[in-house]
């Protein structure tokens, strides 16, 4: 394997406190050195002047759809989309059929991943059997087979007793429980955030209180059991305050936010026109919230309360979205726009660049102790995987779903102009994706 010398870029490696004009040398597919004006004979020089060099992104929340929903996406298509988005390590949510709730299913899934995946994929196991919310899955068995975390994502573990037992058992295994925190009774029938827009459109709402009360319950159960709660895709200002308070008291709780909830509000459902669009591509669960919530999430990220930016990449087939709003499947295909929206928010002065990179790399790796499975994951420490993202903060581009690698063309951002994007992705020391740039 040829050594690669990535030179001329601004290296941001939050784990090592680096943010400077530095070179990165990759040798044998791993990070060998980071320093000023490095020289290595026999290496290929990769000039990234004007770009930002970061560790490959680590996504704690993605939907690959295989097995069971291959019309929406496959391990092959969705991991290629992840790669193009800079996500070189992703955790696959278990809402597949069958759900990974036992060793045989997890093993079969890992075989498929081994055959088809373009990036590193860690499976997340189901908390309950078949994700039905009724009886616990074989947690230790699934963990032994390779699950790095557990979740019934898409649904909460609504039964408090079941949640308590799951947190207790997973706590003893040292594994996180990533919880889709909502109250299905308060949310019954809801298809978007409850408030101004839902009342305007006559759509049933999902109140912020449904998330807030669920987070409060889950924090109380985590505290009582010593379990490791990870609050998936947090969306509410008040929910975030509860997490911040729990962290301040020393609870082992972590949380994530999606690029969609940082960039968009409930207004995306209405659309830009005078008449409502009922944009099913802006339907997501938990829903896009208010501008006040969005601002709170931005603050939470900039202040380091939010551990991870996770995509909740959720590809859907055309017919899943080309239907009545109530019937449309929730979810946004996010892999290929995430870096673009985040860098656009950096360019606007909303988000702090180093915090964003930390929440995409070292922090998620540490939150789920993935760096104990793959040494140096999410960092540019010597020996870390040679997974590198080259970001171009000045890239002006327009979202065009026809260029997406994901099967899911479901995004409310179609046609949106963004500032900043992924220029290249290096996987295991090899340039695996590169965007052609027109030179004047």
């Amino acid at each position, binding site marked *: 394997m040829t050594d690669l010398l990535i030179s001329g870029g601004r290296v941001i490696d939050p784990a090592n406190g680096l943010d400077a004009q530095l070179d990165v040398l990759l040798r044998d597919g791993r990070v060998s050195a980071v320093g000023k004006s490095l020289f290595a004979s026999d290496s290929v020089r990769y000039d990234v002047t004007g770009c930002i060099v970061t560790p490959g992104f680590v996504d704690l929340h993605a939907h690959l759809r295989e097995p069971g929903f291959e019309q929406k996406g496959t391990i092959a298509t969705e991991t290629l989309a992840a790669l193009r988005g800079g996500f070189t390590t992703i955790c696959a949510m278990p809402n597949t059929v069958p759900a990974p709730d036992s060793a045989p299913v997890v093993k079969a899934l890992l075989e498929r991943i081994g055959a088809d995946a373009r990036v590193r994929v860690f499976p997340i196991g189901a908390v309950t059997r078949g994700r039905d919310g009724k009886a616990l899955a074989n947690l230790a068995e699934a963990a032994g087979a390779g699950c790095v975390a557990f979740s019934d994502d898409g649904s909460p573990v609504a039964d408090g007793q079941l949640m308590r037992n799951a947190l207790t058992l997973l706590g003893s295994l040292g594994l996180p429980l990533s919880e889709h925190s909502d109250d299905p009774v308060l949310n019954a029938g809801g298809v978007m955030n409850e*408030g*101004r827009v839902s*009342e*305007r*459109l*006559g*759509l*049933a709402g999902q109140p912020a209180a449904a998330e807030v009360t669920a987070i409060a319950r889950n924090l109380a159960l985590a505290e009582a059991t010593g379990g490791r709660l990870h609050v998936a895709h947090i969306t509410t200002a008040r929910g975030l305050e509860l997490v911040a308070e729990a962290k301040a008291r020393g609870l082992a709780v972590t949380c994530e936010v999606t690029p969609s909830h940082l960039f968009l509000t409930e207004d995306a459902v209405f659309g830009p026109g*005078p*008449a*409502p*669009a*009922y944009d099913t591509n802006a339907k997501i669960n938990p829903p896009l919230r208010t501008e006040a919530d969005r601002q709170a999430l931005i603050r939470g990220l900039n202040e380091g309360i939010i551990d991870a930016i996770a995509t909740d990449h959720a590809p859907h087939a055309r*017919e899943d979205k*080309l*239907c*009545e*709003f*109530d*019937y449309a499947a929730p979810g946004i295909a996010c892999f290929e726009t995430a870096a673009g929206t985040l860098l656009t928010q950096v360019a606007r002065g909303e988000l702090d660049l180093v915090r964003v990179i930390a929440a995409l790399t070292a922090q998620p790796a540490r939150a789920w102790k993935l760096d104990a499975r793959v040494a140096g994951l999410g960092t540019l420490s010597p020996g870390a995987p040679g997974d590198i993202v080259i970001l171009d903060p000045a890239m002006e581009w327009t979202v065009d779903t026809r260029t997406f690698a994901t099967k899911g063309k479901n995004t409310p951002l179609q046609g949106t102009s963004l500032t900043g994007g992924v220029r290249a992705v290096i996987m295991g020391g090899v340039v695996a994706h590169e965007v052609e740039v027109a030179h004047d």
Partner: protein
Amino acid sequence: MIDVQERPAPGPAEAPAWRHKDLLDTDVLSRADIDLVMETADAMLEVRSRPVAKVATLRGATVVTLFYEQSTRTRASFEVAAKAMGADVVNLTASGSSVVKGESLVDTVRTLEAIGADLLVMRHDRSGAPYLAAKNTKAGVINGGDGTHAHPTQALLDLFTMRRHLGALDGKKVVIVGDVLHSRVARSNVWSLLAAGANVTLCGPATLLPRTLASAGGEEGRVALTADLDRALVDADVVMALRIQKERQATGLIPSLREYINGYQVNATRLARAKPGALVMHPGPMNEGIEISPEAAHGLASVIEEQVANGVAVRMAVLYLMATARTK
């Protein structure tokens, strides 16, 4: 059929300035749009009063009514309106169509366009469904009621009825009472009444009020929300009762129908607080004895039956304006 040449088509002499491909809600209608519908409906009402209450204005046009939800009066009203102008009418219901075989709304609408539908009148139990239909067909789509969102022709016929009794509505007070939160009639009425210059008070149990809709009235506060019917009714020019769905009790939004009746039934005692002779309206179908007392429903101030009759004229006006806009 009366000859078009002999009995000229109603409506303004020059081609009407109707610019909308679809009528999905009243929220995008300007005051001029609304005035145009009202004037055209006046002419249509005159047509309806003739011994042979028909013209041939829409001869050759195909109007399809596509109903995904039960309806008697709205579907019949549109059918009578279309036939009164010589249109061919095809009635489809979800239970008697390929919908039961799983055909998507978009496919259904495209099929109807290919068959030759010019105008599509659509009723659907899901909010926003007509918007999806309109986006996917060249046919003009008229929203005949979608979920808990909008019912623009009901709002226009309500406005038409009010104007016939009260004249211009500027500064008039219209009180809408009941399950406002789930009412497509109330929502569409808010937009058309605001455009026509009226002030609107929305009244009902607090669980059935859309808390953010007051902001629709702008800084002048032309939309008010209250759970107190007695206060709401003071100085009212119009009192409109909404149908209360019995399932609201089952879902706990109201404790009981008895409690609802005690607090919100439109009846003679309550109406005494409104202006003398205030109009009593209801979009139907009524639960007499629940949201409205029989005395109020059939009293001297009630214009409820007139609303139904006016509905045909207003729907004729809408069909006429939309069909004419298409041929331009």
